């Protein structure tokens, strides 16, 4: 190589201020995830290589775990239940999201709100409703024809219910940006409907499909609440973690299973990268927004699809609402409001409800902007691909971490005497931080999906006009993406209202959330009171959601007018 060539290699483009700003954003995001996720998790998972006294023992714990006969059973159970759930949820959610975004069916706002219902309620609610319907004393028990709801069947039905909202959220985002010109061109070329679906619609939604698939798969793998209530003795990896950590206080083995559970996150990350390379933005700067025209042959079946799903969801919730009003199921079905006097069951009474509202409001208000800004940085910082890649990976990890692993990790990390952030421990602050991190991934994926549909030309034009990146971000990106930012905020809010597995280790005497109080009521055999608390949480989240629908309407009129012609 000649000296001239070597010199040429060393020439680097000068970093613009914009690049520096973006790199700083990515670095901040990395720092946030390092402090709030990687460090605590590392502190716990390192225990998988230690014995009880803290000595390094290499892979000894892993070998011991592999030799446990129950392991392969749990692993296999987790995999097939998660795969089957994903296979059921994806087509259902795709049809639903397609109807919301690409059809002219009536009542879209209603169906959009209903789709979120399952995550507005604690997962105990559908499980209780299923027991009322299909349990051994259930009203519809004969429909099972001798089968049992306890076990994989109950788990899969409950998980489908529980995973539907995030799948719809991601897919609707993926489908909402469409360029009408492509469809006009297809029509002009007389392409068949199936061909249009295959060559225009699906490719544009591919990234969303892959994301949604992995979100669902990972959620099912790591969820513990549903298998605990309705899984009977059906062992899955998440219940194995519970046995090790809560049943036997064996943090080392709990960490081993926690590590095993991280595998889906790694796979999700790889798949994400694969889909990313194949995704092109569908809303170019010249895009003309797609507006669905009336077409009864398409809209009719879609309406039916949505109506059936919505009816099932409302039915399940209706059963639980009824369950919150009865005196003692199934022996005394007289109706009463006494179950809502929470002071009778828990000394904190309604106080825990207020704790939950506080926690959820802060989680949404801090989390949503944070998630979106970091996602923006990762998408746009082209000059530091390696750093952005690492941070992107970190953002997909929380989904794969079972809440109880995250909760214990937070104790070890934030309660360590040397940790300067230790003052957070025992306050609402640590619950907020924990909740933002715990539910980071879905918000991140939704943000990225939305950002991917925006043509990078917006930035190029801005740059050529010498408009700083933060101005084009605030003036163009944020207004366009405001619906998704609000979606993320709502997602964080409702999850913080219902979360149990992590916060159960972190609440202090005066910060106990309602979701924890509810589990304790159920533990004490007060199922009706637990249902009442679940309905209260649901009503709270629904009210916030209604506020969201209203603001969305206002925002749409102000910022989304450009989408229509």
């Amino acid at each position: 190589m000649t000296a001239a060539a070597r010199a040429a290699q060393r020439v680097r483009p000068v970093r613009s201020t914009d690049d520096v700003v973006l790199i700083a954003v990515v670095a901040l995001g990395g720092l946030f995830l390092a402090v709030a996720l990687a460090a605590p998790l590392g502190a716990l998972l390192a225990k998988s290589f230690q014995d009880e006294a803290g000595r390094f023992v290499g892979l000894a714990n892993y070998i011991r775990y592999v030799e446990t006969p129950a392991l392969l059973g749990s692993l296999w159970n987790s995999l097939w239940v998660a795969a089957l759930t994903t296979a059921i949820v994806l087509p259902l959610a795709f049809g639903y999201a397609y109807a919301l975004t690409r059809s002219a069916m009536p009542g879209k706002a209603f169906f959009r709100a209903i789709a979120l219902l399952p995550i507005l309620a604690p997962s105990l609610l559908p499980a209780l409703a299923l027991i009322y319907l299909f349990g051994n004393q259930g009203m519809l028990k004969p429909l099972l024809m001798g089968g049992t709801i306890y076990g994989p069947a109950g788990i899969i039905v409950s998980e489908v219910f529980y995973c539907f909202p995030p799948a719809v959220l991601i897919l609707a985002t993926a489908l909402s940006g469409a360029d009408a010109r492509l469809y006009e061109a297809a029509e002009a070329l007389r392409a068949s409907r199936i061909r249009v679906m295959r060559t225009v619609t699906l490719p544009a939604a591919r990234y969303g499909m892959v994301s949604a698939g992995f979100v669902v798969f990972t959620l099912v793998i790591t969820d513990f609440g549903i298998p605990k209530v309705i899984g009977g003795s059906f062992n899955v990896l998440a219940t194995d973690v519970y046995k090790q950590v809560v049943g036997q206080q064996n943090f080392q083995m709990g960490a081993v299973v926690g590590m095993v559970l991280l595998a889906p996150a790694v796979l999700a990350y790889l798949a994400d990268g694969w889909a990313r390379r194949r995704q092109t933005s569908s809303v170019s700067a010249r895009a003309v927004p797609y507006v669905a025209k009336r077409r009864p042959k398409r809209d009719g079946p879609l309406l039916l699809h949505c109506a059936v799903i919505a009816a099932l969801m409302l039915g399940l919730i209706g059963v639980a609402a009824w369950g919150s009003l009865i005196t003692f199921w199934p022996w005394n079905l007289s109706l009463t409001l006494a179950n809502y006097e929470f002071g009778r069951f828990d000394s904190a009474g309604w106080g825990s409800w207020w704790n939950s509202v506080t926690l959820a409001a802060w989680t949404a208000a801090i989390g949503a902007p944070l998630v979106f800004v970091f996602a923006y940085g990762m998408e746009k910082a082209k000059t530091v691909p390696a750093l952005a890649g690492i941070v992107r990976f970190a953002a997909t990890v929380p989904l794969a971490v079972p809440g109880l692993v995250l909760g214990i990790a937070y104790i070890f990390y934030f309660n360590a005497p040397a940790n300067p952030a230790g003052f957070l421990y025992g306050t609402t602050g640590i619950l907020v931080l924990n909740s933002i991190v715990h539910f980071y991934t879905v918000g991140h994926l939704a943000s990225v999906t939305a950002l991917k549909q925006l043509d990078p030309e917006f930035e190029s034009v801005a740059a050529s006009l010498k408009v700083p990146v933060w101005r084009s971000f605030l003036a163009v990106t944020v207004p366009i993406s405001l619906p998704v930012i609000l979606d993320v905020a709502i997602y964080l809010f409702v999850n913080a209202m219902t979360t149990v597995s992590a916060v159960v280790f972190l609440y202090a005497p005066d910060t106990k959330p309602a979701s924890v109080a509810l589990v304790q009521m159920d533990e004490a055999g007060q199922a009706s009171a637990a249902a009442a608390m679940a309905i209260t949480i649901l009503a709270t989240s629904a009210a916030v959601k209604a506020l969201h629908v209203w603001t969305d309407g206002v925002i749409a009129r102000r910022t989304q007018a450009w989408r229509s012609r």
Partner: protein
Amino acid sequence: MLRRPLLAALAAPLLATLPIAVADAQQRTRLTVYTALENEQLPEFKRAAEAALPGIEIVWVRDSTGIVTTRLLAEKENPRADVIWGLSVFSLQRLEQENMLLPYTPSGAEALRPQFRSSASPTTWIGMDAFVSAVCFNTAVARQRNLPTPSTWADLLDPAYRGLIAMPNPASSGTGLLTIAGWLGTMGEEQAWAFMTKLHENVAVYTHSGSAPCNNAARGEYAIGLSFDMRAVTLKNQGAPIEIIVPSDGVGFDLEGAAIVRGTRNEAAGRRLMDYAASEAAMALYGRYYALLGHPGVTPSVQGYPAAFAERLAKVDFGEVATNRDRILAEWSRRFDAKSAPRN
């Protein structure tokens, strides 16, 4: 000018949550007490203790035994609890092994039954009361299915109960562990395992929570739930059609105990609470819920226990169970957990 009202509408609920003016002028010592007592007991215990101990305020962190023990162990480096009041002695022994309990012999501890205080001197924990494994038997389901009422563990092997029994998984639940520890204690290892193998044929589900089997029996999901007495009594009081059976062929039991957490910043107040926890007044309080108390001189006021109840307790050596716990659980999991798919 839509933007501002909109922002205000979004911001108002947030601002309302700001902890403005949390000026607590109290001079009382706040004791953080970790407990697995029942929620309904907490206000009563708090009132009684605060009345007896002026200047002390009790704040509870209450959760199931597993969660509380896990939290205590995870917080070892920087303990947040001052006192433990109402936690399984299996858990207390584990904490003792980890050197997490502060030795202190409460005044009056010498009056307690020997099994109700740690062998260390000064003592590291004291026992308050005992809870035993009990059978919740749903009489409504029994009528539907024409089931006989069991009175011993051996009765549960009757094929009539096939698929109708729920019991806690000992790998997840302390109640499950105390139940099988009782069988191992009364029957001896070999016979106990043979018993469990036969019982396995009748068990429909091994639950992760110690309360769940009795809750399920109360709801009629299963006819029989193996759980502990206190849970059964509260459910019965709620109106569940269950009969509480303390099998006559020996039942496993566990003690609820109290201890001071090493590292507390309120040691003096903690000692006062320990003195109270061992007092006859406190024992009378425990006696409203439990039939066997640490102080032999206090008569429990709880109703519904068989007269010769104390004689039914299995010979359980807590130290030995703690030592053999890993082995017992591994054996149990090998035999029953790997093939515990639900059956009808």
